[in-house]
């Protein structure tokens, strides 16, 4: 296990380097003069020339790359053209909102998904099972903006229980987290159901039953613990796509998170800010994946040797 974790840790700097390189190349592969694009259509030639010098675009590509790498290492990803503030700081600020949203949604997803999945597996073939299968399939198929709008309509507009836009109080996070969490729960419920069905048909469950082990212990200790490994692995993968869904959810609920910032940066053509958002987004996902892999190795005894 230590070897596997060490290998993953060794790979980490390369992944991060690739990420920063992709962010660097982003601005260079856009057709046209980056300085002209960033300065905007009504910039004077002098402004464009000044920006070219400021961005170091008059130097060779390799020099630009090395300068960029050096700056990133010291935490400098340039100044956002839109606001004049450091792009990296802005992206990291926004990350706090996205991280809150992601963690709460993940908890909802695991709670709802695992409970529904286990229930469906235990009541296999009944109406309840069919209902859960249908609901979780709908969860997999629903566009993120539809679930968000339905929640807004029901809980925000008709019942007036919770606020529907902004991120100033914890209550503001209720609907967005539910919106993302319930979608993710669909996928988790599907995996949990099939993993539980697989485990419950194993010989050791029958043996436990024959020995007179109570049903509760059979399901939770013998069943869910073994089904937990595939569930954990899917949950880890989902954490990444959760940030993808957050782009839409944050836009709808007006949460000033990283996803919404990225969309705004794209619309503003603020390439420095886009680069910062992508690096922060990417680094976070790389780290979460690493953490999942390590957790995976710890949980699954077969991977320890």
């Amino acid at each position: 296990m230590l070897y596997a974790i060490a290998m993953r840790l060794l790979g980490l700097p390369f992944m991060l380097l690739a990420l920063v390189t992709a962010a660097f190349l982003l601005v260079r592969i856009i057709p046209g003069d980056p300085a002209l694009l960033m300065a905007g259509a009504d910039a004077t030639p002098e402004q464009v020339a000044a920006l070219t010098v400021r961005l170091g675009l008059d130097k060779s590509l390799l020099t630009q790359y090395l300068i960029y790498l050096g700056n990133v290492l010291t935490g400098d990803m340039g100044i956002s053209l839109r606001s004049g503030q450091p792009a990296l700081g802005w992206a990291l600020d926004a990350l706090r909102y996205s991280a809150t949203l992601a963690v709460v949604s993940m908890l909802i997803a695991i709670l709802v998904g695992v409970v529904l999945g286990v229930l469906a597996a235990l009541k296999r073939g009944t109406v309840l099972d069919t209902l859960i299968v249908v609901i979780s399939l709908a969860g997999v198929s629903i566009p993120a903006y539809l679930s968000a709008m339905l929640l807004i309509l029901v809980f925000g507009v008709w019942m007036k229980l919770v606020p529907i836009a902004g991120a100033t109080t914890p209550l503001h996070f209720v609907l967005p987290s539910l919106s993302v969490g319930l979608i993710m729960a669909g996928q988790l419920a599907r995996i949990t159901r099939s993993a539980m069905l697989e485990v419950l048909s194993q010989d050791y469950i029958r043996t436990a039953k024959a020995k007179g082990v109570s049903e509760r212990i059979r399901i939770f200790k013998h069943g869910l613990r073994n089904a937990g490994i595939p569930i954990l692995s899917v949950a880890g993968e989902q954490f990444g796509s959760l940030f993808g869904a957050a782009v839409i959810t944050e836009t709808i609920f007006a949460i000033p998170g990283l996803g919404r910032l990225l969309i705004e940066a794209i619309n503003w053509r603020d390439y420095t800010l886009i680069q910062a958002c992508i690096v922060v987004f990417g680094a976070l996902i790389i780290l979460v994946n690493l953490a999942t892999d390590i957790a995976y190795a710890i949980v699954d005894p077969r991977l320890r040797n």
Partner: protein
Amino acid sequence: MRILKQLLRHKSGLIGSVITLLIVLPIALAPLIYSYDDVINMNLAQVLRPPSLEHPLGTDELGRDLMGRLLWGGRVSLVLSSVSVAIGLVAGVTIGVCAGYFDGPLSWLTMRCVDAMMTFPRMLVALFVITVMGQGEVSLAIAVGISTIPIFARLSRGSTLALRGIAYVEAAGAIGASHSRILLRHILPNILSPLLVQATLAFASAVILAAGLSFLGMGPAPPTPEWGAMTAEARSYLVTAPHIVLAPAVAVLLLVLGFNLLGDALRDIMDPRLTQERH
């Protein structure tokens, strides 16, 4: 034909086929019922009319028939998603089959790149491509397509690796068949069934991803009807006329649901091992 029969005998396959047909058929027939001009030209005398005989779903915020826009919008969504799955399929299978068949540093490097791409959410990969290419329907289709490549590349590499050691492939090599002949005649036909399953599921996720990107304003510009964009454009009417906002989104849900059901059913049918476990 055999697959079709089995599909109709399979419960979720049948439901999936029915849902898909119910959506795709009217979309295909849309030009017979509504002219494209009707669905893009605004008519401010008829804004936000409730459903009636003339307008089965009423009219939208610019006085256009909602049903007509839904059907024409479905064409845009279907074409966008089909093109993107085709891009992902062709590029992904080419990469995957070659990386699985030819060993070497290049294959290794390519697959590491694929793995790295797979790490990131598809939404992020697609947004990256759109940032480079600009907004619009062409770059949207390419962006969604590129984000699909890793799925097909991994699948076809795995299947090719498994086939490479099988006797008939080795025998073909031994009697002097060229690499391209082995790849096209012996390997490709044998990995088609997992690819078909994956393509169906990839289509479902391409519809949802394209609609999401379009909702964010990265897709076709107005007045082109597109399901994601229609929801985004009508968003401010969520409280006063929710059906205009929700109808295109529900259309996405149904189409994706239909294809997900079809994909699940195809997987059961194509993989007999799974079917045996079920019964």
